[in-house]
């Protein structure tokens, strides 16, 4: 998956992953992709819900990576308008 910027919110609890992602998305050009790294398991469903609500983004993909036995939830968010 191609991306233009990375936002690392590992260790941050809800609502910060989405608060920070909103701020980052507003810095991107239309068409660019933000990769978000989170340790908050709840972020998976919350990013899906946010993408349905926000008109200027599209959730391209979500992945789970393992790092030292800890799960990292990765979200790819594209700015579409």
């Amino acid at each position: 998956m191609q991306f233009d910027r990375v936002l690392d919110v590992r260790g941050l609890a809800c609502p910060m992953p989405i608060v920070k992602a909103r701020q980052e998305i507003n810095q991107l050009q239309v068409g660019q992709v933000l990769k978000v790294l989170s340790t908050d398991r709840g972020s998976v469903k919350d990013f899906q819900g946010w993408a349905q609500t926000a008109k200027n983004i599209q959730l391209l993909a979500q992945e789970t990576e393992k790092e030292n036995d800890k799960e990292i939830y990765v979200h790819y968010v594209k700015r579409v308008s």
Partner: protein
Amino acid sequence: MTTAVKQATEWTVQELKDHLDRGESFFLFDVRNRDEFSTWKIEARTKLPTLNVPYFEILEEGGKDDVVESVIAYAQAKLVSQLPTDKTILVVCAKGGTSALVAEGLRQIGYNAVNLAGGMKAWGDFYQIKSVVESPALSIYQISRPARGCLSYVIASQGEAAIVDPLRHIEHYLDFVKEKKLSIKLVLDTHGHADHISGGRALADRVNAPYYLHPYDAIHPIDVLPAKLSFEFLRDGQEFSIGSAKIKTIHIPGHTLGNVVYLVNEKYLLTGDSIFIESVARPDLGGRGETWAPLHYRSLERLLKLSDSTVILPGHFSQPKEANAQGLFMATLGELKAQNEGLQMVQRGEKAFVDYMLSSLPTFPPQYVDIKRVNAGLLNPDEEKASELELGKNICALAQAYRD
């Protein structure tokens, strides 16, 4: 001179339970996503006025960088007609962090909003202890997780105790027996649970007591694999002594193949997952509902032959309103024969009962297969995973109990 009254900014889960027990009305504002909310929410004896708006909608539509400012903007634009100004608004999220900010925003514009500290995670992990009967010769305590509808028991006599169906957070039982100066002699499970992780093996290890389970339930019914944890074999008719109290085991296959109930002093029947207050246990969580439903019928029929004055103490409840005035989930067998839909069907014969059972099955939560694995020692989740497996309310009873 006016005195400024300091308003509470949060409720602990204990304070929430106190409000629910007193039947005080408040407004529930749940900011989790819609799936989580529809699966599981805070329930009272009577329906609470409730609103669910996922926090990311508040952030997005509030439109500010700052969370509290977004809440204020969103509430002023969209919630004025929906939020009450004459009631406490309890704001709830998954872990209590986001809801604290939402409550803060609502307070700034004049609402009496409080945060539920620790959120639904803390509510799900909250335990409450109430006494069913208390005397030196016999005490029985009902230990519940109100949010999950799980019930467990301490049977005590002459300083000795047996714990029946202990739940995962065993420190609650350890603290309680210490306070009551009891020594745990015995840990008993009624069956291999599907909806919650048993604290049985862990508690028995901590106090060096034997842990009993029926051997049929030490085989995972879906994997067909033997348990990887040690236990003592329970058998039908087996008797235990705790102080001067007598506990008799009755094997009643149906909900599981190794399902048992415990009859204490010929009077109190700890029914685990068989007879509940409003309904009976489902027969299909082992994946063999059609085969097990007739077994379940014969087992329940056997229990109906006990005296009508037998006090039923179930392993679950479905709704808070099933509690009596003392907040206990209990009733006599005679009362339940007249009220409980499942037991009424038993009295109509095997075919009627089996048809009723198989036509009333609620959804089969997929995580129940994994929970049975954990309880057989076939899977060892960390705390976060364990907590996630247990999220929400149990669905061990037939669907009838869930009508609004």
